């Protein structure tokens, strides 16, 4: 059985956010929810400042606290290492959100894509209403741009009252495709593969560079690894001074 993991090469990542847009399109992610996200930080004191960008997603931890805490096994591990969620079993207690140290699980506080159910035209007498648009283009199913492929392993649009998060695009993996964020990355900064294949691309990178994972001290064994970091800066050799 494969054990899937992702390596994110921070030297290649340009922080364009294409991964997040691709994820949103592929998984019909509603407003306010981010399966693919980022942590940004401005470090230093002006004028010596620097901007840092770290792409984030569900870490598909081998020892996932969200899975341990879920009372109904809605959050569960697949044999291939993916942390999967079953909205049918989810009672909406949000204990997984409380338990996740990486803050990558979101709750559907209201019906998804609510904007597209609004029967009021954007411009009275000038345009159709969002509801009409969704009805015409996508049979009223969520938003007009909804991807039906997502519906193979999860509801195409997750309902109000349950959580949702990244699934490593399990529906694409099932048909031999890589996650869509990886596919869409213009810089090839995301590398996806099987840790159980000694010669896989991910294993080669993990052996070549010194990888790190987020909050490793917690022992959750994340399966998203980061390598290298982008920093073109240089400085004159010095011992400092007092």
């Amino acid at each position, binding site marked *: 059985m494969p054990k899937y993991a992702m390596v994110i090469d921070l030297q290649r990542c340009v922080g364009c956010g294409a991964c997040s847009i691709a994820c949103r399109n592929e998984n019909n992610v509603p407003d*306010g929810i*981010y399966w693919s*996200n*980022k*942590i*940004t930080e401005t470090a230093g004191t002006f004028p010596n400042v620097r901007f840092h960008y770290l792409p*984030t997603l569900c870490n598909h931890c081998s020892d996932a*606290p969200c899975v*341990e*805490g*879920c*009372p*109904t*096994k*809605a959050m569960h591990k697949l044999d291939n290492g993916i942390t999967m969620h079953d909205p*049918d*079993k*989810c*009672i*909406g*207690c*949000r*204990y997984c*959100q*409380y*338990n*996740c*140290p*990486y*803050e*990558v699980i*979101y*709750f*559907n*506080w*209201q*019906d998804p894509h609510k904007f597209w159910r609004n029967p009021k035209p954007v411009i009275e007498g000038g345009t159709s209403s969002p509801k009409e648009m969704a009805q015409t283009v996508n049979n009223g199913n969520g938003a007009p741009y909804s991807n039906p492929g997502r519906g193979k392993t999860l509801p195409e649009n997750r309902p*109000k*009252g*349950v*959580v949702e998060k990244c699934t490593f695009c399990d529906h694409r993996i099932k048909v031999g495709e890589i996650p869509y964020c990886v596919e869409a990355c213009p810089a090839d900064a995301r590398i996806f593969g099987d840790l159980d294949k000694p010669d896989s691309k991910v294993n080669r990178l993990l052996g070549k560079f010194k990888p790190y994972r*987020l*909050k490793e001290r*917690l*022992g959750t064994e994340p399966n998203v690894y980061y390598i290298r970091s982008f920093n073109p800066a240089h400085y004159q050799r010095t011992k400092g001074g007092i």
Partner: protein
Amino acid sequence: MKAIKIQLWYGLLLLGILLGLITAYRVLIGTGFVLYAKTDILVWTMPIAAYVFFSLTSSGLAFVSSIPVVFGIKRYQPIEKRTAFLEIAVLFAAFTCLLLHLGSPQKVYYYLFSPNLASPLWWLGMLYGLYLIVLLLSFRKMHKAQVSKGLGVFTLIVAIATSTALGWLFGLPDARPVFSANFLAMYFPLTGFGSALAAVLLFSLAYHHFAKVPLSGGDRNLYEDLGKLFGFVMALTLVFFLWRTIVGGTSATAVEFGGFRHMLSSGWYHLALWVGLVIPILMITMPAVRNATWGKITAAALFLVGMFAGRLEMVLSGLVMPTGPKAEGQPPFVSYWPTIWEVLVFVSALAVLLFVYTLGERNLKLSEAPE
């Protein structure tokens, strides 16, 4: 005149329950949980704090009702039946809060069909289900010799398990060290016991007042005894409260304690400390106040108000500091003020409690004690 007052009282409580039903409709079927001041940062807020408050009070009431039946201290028998019925009424209030917190309560049957034995939340759900059954059974069999004692012991064990499992539930995530399971497994039962003593004093003395039943000499001694015990438990709670403040609020340097440090300057924290602990402790230490009915009632009411604020402060302490990607574009600490719908969750839970209790008080002879 009395009948009108009773009808008005029932009307008021039914209005509270109706408001709860409207809230349930609005959040579960209508607009959604955006009606609450919850976000993906503040995933648990007032409804959960209210649940913790009521469920621990119910467990604490089991400790109080076990005093005569399990530990054989007979002078507590006059309050045994009322306390046991209060446990049930308060537990209904806790379930009301939980129902209005869950995103999809209609699927709770998966607790049985897809159980996760590693989850504290699963155990807590099961234990509270069991607790309700045991409470109903033990109330039915109350004062019936051997069965009563056996059920009393079992109730006490389940109550200890529920209140300590709640500590496990909060303390599970290593990422939120501000909730220490070791600490909460002691603090929760203790404060539950304190809340229960306050509730027993409040409801028993209210019974004497409203039913116009004068306090007998034995009653007076019992309530004075309860008042002293209440004072002792409050003092112990204050000690724990202060140590929690020192360890997590001023000594700890870990980033994860930032939320608690922030909450130390919140109104909820100070309400819990001053109104909920310092003032009632001072009141109870004065014999003239402690022995007066109004003194005990005021101290008990203040303690319950402070305890509720403390539950909310505790829940928020682990959540107000956004971290990771959810901190993007957020201030270092998010603020919280309940919406009217969240307040209605508490109001409806209180209405359920008082409605069930009033029915019991009027129909089940709660002052009854064995011969």
